[in-house]
């Protein structure tokens, strides 16, 4: 059961091949068997999952189920779940049981999906390896000496290992796409504002966006159908109309123009990864697409612009954690100042502290213009590069990451080396565009991802390109040993 796609599981449930309870038990058993090693979940909600699964079975029996009724999924531990601990990978929220559901969680619950649990992540979504989690890193199911990527590393590890058929993630600078690439999954970061941010613990509010992670593009489309839509309670939620993201999956790629940014195929790209990306592009050409050389001239500025804007926004967002209303509080504070400073010293990990301090500096009197305003101006130039490119092409393609997953510990002492991991993904967030990672082969048994970037609100087109590619290639259906060898 656990190797089936979400699309196949829907069929199985509707044709009564198995019940949602049987399916949910299958995943809970796999979690019990493998999560000790992989650390993909921070919290597993066995009782809650089985109760929802039984209720879903009643709905299925009555014949009035929605498309995802009874489908188990995992949620990144950044989404508030009423009554279920939401840690955000931080000691600060280790004891936080939200009194409400995130809008996205409400949408999944109304659709009848079964929440298996909450997945591991870099603390407050800051990281590219999952090593910044207070709960220890999730491991890569393809090779447990490797990182699964981050920050949505637990979601990626859970799906890749068959501990959930699909999961949600969030992507502020690559946090869906990079772990999807490292774990051999398909992951989509939608257009900024497409999925509600209400109840999603805020990191950088002008960049944060939630999206689906699964094996196939079709499964991502099924999840996005639930997730996408306007939320009046999120002031930056888009009112742009949604659509059925499955409808365009079968469209031919004949005549599609795909732009290849020359800046994404330069020195920093691992040679074997580059060869695989070129093979994937040749496959898209066979499907009728035309490859067009393009330039994104401000690409070299995406890391510096991002590492001003994201920390600046983080420093303001994370100022709410003060030990007064919820979350961690230090023992025996001597005065209010001691309460704040010691609570935050104890509650935050090193990377979170660094980013808060960099952001505080960039926003402080005398430095605001030189850093924050400057980064926002460069951000516009970066977005304009994409707008110019999309005059000539329909979709942009390149590598998701400079190379495959790296060993645990190999970059964790060097923040800048870690930041370079996101060199190809950050610009998409700065420009607010939708971006995907699609499995495109293996370097020494380590998966790598093809990145597809679309125009604003062109998620259907990205999913269409990925789906057509997946009809011709086997990469998204390759599974690690832990998936195929574990208990069925």
């Amino acid at each position, binding site marked *: 059961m656990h190797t089936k796609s979400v699309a196949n599981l829907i069929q199985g449930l509707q044709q009564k091949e198995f019940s949602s309870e049987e399916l949910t038990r299958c995943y809970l058993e796999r979690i019990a068997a493998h999560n000790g090693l992989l650390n993909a979940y921070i919290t597993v909600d066995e009782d809650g999952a089985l109760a929802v699964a039984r209720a879903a079975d009643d709905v299925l029996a009555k014949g009035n189920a929605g498309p995802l009724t009874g489908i188990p999924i995992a949620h990144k531990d950044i989404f508030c779940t009423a009554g279920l601990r939401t840690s955000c990978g931080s000691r600060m929220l280790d004891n*936080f*049981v*939200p*009194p409400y559901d995130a809008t996205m969680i409400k949408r999944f619950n109304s659709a009848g999906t079964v929440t298996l649990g909450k997945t591991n992540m870099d603390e407050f979504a800051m990281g590219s390896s999952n090593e910044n989690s207070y709960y220890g890193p999730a491991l890569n199911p393809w090779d447990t000496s490797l990182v699964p990527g981050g920050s949505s590393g637990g979601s990626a590890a859970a799906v890749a290992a068959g501990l959930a058929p699909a999961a949600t993630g969030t992507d502020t600078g690559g946090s869906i796409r990079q772990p999807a690439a490292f774990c051999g999954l398909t992951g989509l970061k939608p*257009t*900024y*504002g497409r999925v509600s941010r209400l109840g999603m613990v805020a990191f950088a509010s*002008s960049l944060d966006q939630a999206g689906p992670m699964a094996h196939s593009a079709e499964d991502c489309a099924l999840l996005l159908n639930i997730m996408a839509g306007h939320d*009046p309670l999120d*002031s930056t939620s*888009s009112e742009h109309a949604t659509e059925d993201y499955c409808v365009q999956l079968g469209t031919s790629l004949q005549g599609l123009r795909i732009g290849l940014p020359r800046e994404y195929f330069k020195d920093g790209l691992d040679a074997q990864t580059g060869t695989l990306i070129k093979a994937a592009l040749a496959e898209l050409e066979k499907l009728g697409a035309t490859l067009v050389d393009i330039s994104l001239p401000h690409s070299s*500025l995406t*890391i*510096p*612009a991002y*590492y*001003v804007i994201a920390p600046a926004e983080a*420093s303001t967002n994370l*100022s709410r954690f*003060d*030990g*007064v*209303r*919820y*979350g961690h*509080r230090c023992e025996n*504070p*001597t*005065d*209010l*100042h*001691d*309460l704040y*400073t010691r609570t*935050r*010293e104890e509650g*935050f990990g090193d990377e979170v*502290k*660094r980013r*808060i*301090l*960099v952001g*505080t*500096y960039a926003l402080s009197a005398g430095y605001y213009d*030189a*850093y924050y*305003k*400057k980064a*926002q*101006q*460069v*951000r*516009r*130039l970066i*977005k304009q590069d994409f707008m110019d490119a999309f005059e000539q092409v329909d979709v942009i393609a390149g590598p998701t990451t400079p190379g495959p997953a790296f060993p645990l510990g190999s970059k964790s002492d060097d*923040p*800048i080396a870690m930041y370079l991991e996101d060199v190809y993904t950050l610009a998409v967030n700065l*420009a*607010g*565009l939708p971006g995907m990672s699609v499995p495109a082969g293996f370097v020494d048994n380590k998966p790598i991802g093809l990145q597809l970037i679309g125009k604003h609100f062109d998620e259907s087109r990205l999913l269409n390109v990925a789906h057509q590619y997946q009809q011709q290639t086997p990469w998204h259906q390759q599974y690690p040993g832990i998936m195929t060898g574990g208990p069925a």
Partner: protein
Amino acid sequence: MTINQDEIEKIAELARIRIDKDQIGELTQRITEILGMVDQLQAVDTSAVTPMANPLDATARLRADVITETNQRDAFQAIAPAVENGLYLVPKVID
């Protein structure tokens, strides 16, 4: 741009984060490296560029000024570290 330990201590105070004395040296070095990387921005002429705060250049929507929320004080205070008589407790602020 270099930053010294005194400045790091000042920023940490602004951010209300206590930093252990024996960690401040390494932290200063890390943040100096990050700011050094970020300094590449200064080479770009942006004199004619409007800063972009929202990737879709959207402005925050306003809603009608009507009450839509119900009182959930008990639920919210149930997860607070210290409350009494419906109030959040903090150390004494005024003598």
